[in-house]
């Protein structure tokens, strides 16, 4: 096992982790504060990816494409909140799941209608293409950029939640939304703002993931599952939990994929180890989730927060 490979695998894990964090932080806020399950969160990620890619192809500016991706997803989030989520806040989770599952299908079909069902063309500026040598191994510049943006957003979210009035209301809202409302805060507006914030973060994740992953209809569905695992492990409603869980899950997943088949060759025949290793690696995060749920049913950050 060579150490430079191990370090670049850690970077890979970190990069996947920040993407997962961007995606799940919005989901966990919406779920935690409004008690609303938004299965269409993956669709917001897809909207960000498509609009971001289209904006880049049209303008050639990377920063503009990021802004367009975030803004479009936030706008879609606002529409979803107003048209679908608002009437369903008081209802059972089952209704919310049904409605947002329908939205998911609606957005997937909409993407096909607008952009067709071939994977959409995405590229990145010349300046951030290619690789730099880091820890003695070449590593893609773009992925380093994703890590940097992710860390910046994580810090921004911490500041927003811990140091601002908006954050204070949000934290209060997680504990008791009715009481916050009684005390004179405009909870409706707070909910709208939060929904847009969450959607915008999902859009940012989508725009950033676009050049790495293939931008196509339905791209949000598999990542939604990962995001749900992250918020369950991290503790619903906790941004810090989402950050910690996203990084842990991504690192475990990446290292598992990289080393499990190799480690299993110590006890199994090479071909069996290869098959069993990759199968086991894809199960690891779910095993982790089961483990966490067994010992901390409310997620790792639950007691720390309350």
């Amino acid at each position, binding site marked *: 096992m060579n150490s430079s490979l191990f370090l670049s695998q850690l970077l890979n894990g970190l990069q996947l982790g920040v993407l997962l964090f961007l995606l799940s932080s919005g989901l966990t806020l919406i779920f935690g504060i409004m008690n609303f399950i938004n299965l269409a969160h993956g669709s917001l990620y897809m909207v960000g990816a498509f609009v971001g890619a289209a904006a880049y192809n049209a303008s050639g500016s990377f920063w503009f494409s990021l802004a367009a991706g975030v803004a479009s997803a936030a706008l879609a989030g606002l529409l979803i909140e107003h048209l679908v989520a608002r009437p369903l806040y008081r209802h059972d989770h089952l209704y919310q799941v049904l409605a947002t599952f329908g939205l998911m299908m609606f957005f997937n079909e909409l993407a096909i209608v607008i952009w067709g069902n071939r994977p959409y063309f995405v590229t990145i500026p010349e300046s951030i293409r290619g690789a730099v040598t880091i820890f003695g*191994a070449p590593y893609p510049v773009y992925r380093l950029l994703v890590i940097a943006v992710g860390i910046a957003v994580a810090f921004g979210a911490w500041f927003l939640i811990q140091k601002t009035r908006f954050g204070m209301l949000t934290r209060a809202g997680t504990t008791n939304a009715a009481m916050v409302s009684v005390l004179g805060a405009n909870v409706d507006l707070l909910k709208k703002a939060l929904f847009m914030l969450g959607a915008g973060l999902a859009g940012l994740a989508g725009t950033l993931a676009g050049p790495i992953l293939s931008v196509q209809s339905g791209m949000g569905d598999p990542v939604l599952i990962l995001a749900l695992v992250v918020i369950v492990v991290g503790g619903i409603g906790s941004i810090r939990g989402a950050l910690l869980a996203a990084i842990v899950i991504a690192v475990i997943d990446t290292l598992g*994929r990289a080393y499990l088949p190799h480690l299993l060759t110590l006890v199994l025949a090479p071909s069996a180890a290869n098959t069993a290793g990759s199968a086991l690696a894809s199960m690891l995060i779910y095993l982790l989730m089961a483990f966490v749920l067994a010992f901390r049913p409310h997620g790792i950050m639950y007691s720390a927060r309350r």
Partner: protein
Amino acid sequence: MKKSMIAALLAGLALGAPAARADVTVGFSGVLSGPQAVLGQDQRDGFLLGLEHLDGKLGGQKADIVIEDDQLKPDVGAQIVQKFLERDKVDAVVGLGFSNVLMAELRRIKDSGVPAIATNAGPGPVAGKLCTANLFGLAWQNDTMSEAMGQYVQDMGHKNAYLMTSSYQAGKDKLNGFKRFFKGDIVKEVYTPLGQLDFSAEISALQAAKPEALFVFYTGGTGVNFVRQLGQAGLMGKLPVYSESMIDANTLVSLKTQADGNIYGATWSHVLDNPQSKRFVEAFEKKYGHTPSEYAANGYDAAYLLDTAVRKMKGDVSDRKAFVAAVKAAGAEFPSVRGKFAFNTNNMPIQNVYAFKAVKEGDDIAVKQLATVFTDHQDAYVSECGMK
């Protein structure tokens, strides 16, 4: 959820008026929705274009087409074939979807005796032990292109190769096809879960292994992801990348110059030089606005194959056994976009397999023909089939 086209309405009218039963009715079934819909739509579009070039007739008889979407679900595919046979009373079936769907349809196809023409799938069992008199693989046996890449990587003098694919039956078959012809060392075989999107961990390991060549089988969006990530890791252009079913007219639209340097095995590409192919490519681009893939070419071939077979029957296809024999013989006679074509004893193709390369031309991407890897290639399973 079934998507029927105008043609299906025509077929419905034909059913309402039994007197019109002298027409030839063909059922097309393929995946027309979901993430893989592009492949099914291409086959359908190619087939309909072929029919259009034949003035809507097969062997001089008016052709009615019924179109159904198998949704890439084996059970749905089996139901569609049953519907084709019982309700639409089809004379032939075209398309038949992915290998898993075809396997589920196999029994009904066999029992019916109706000629069935697969324009995408060619699973090993159907080429070997389960070969069926009335089932024709017009596209390829599944291992074909990987075998060609194994041979080509061998021809290029690479001493070792690193293999990667998704972990499912087709992935394993493709790697076996590659290994059947590549005699050098296999550095590592990597199987990733089907549907995996991020390959960072695998690519880092690949970089560390420093192989002489890479062979991959990732289809559709997965392939697009993989190529893009290889490029971002700075491997494209440094490491020779060989593939199959990863680079085609559809994925090139989303990859463009990012695919530069990729070498892939295929039985057809839009640059293949023969009159039938040129006519097809030109008309397809004009009608649908994009370059046809090999799936569209297979669909187009299916129309001409049926046309030749119906002509041999002088327009009367009521004798199914004779019709099946006519289709088999027509395989060597119809004008194929692939140039030379024939059905083997197991009803799988005998055809040339080529190595193509995606090459950057300015801001665009072009396809260059590198070599004819196999001439009149047969699959590895033909000896297991009892048919003569």
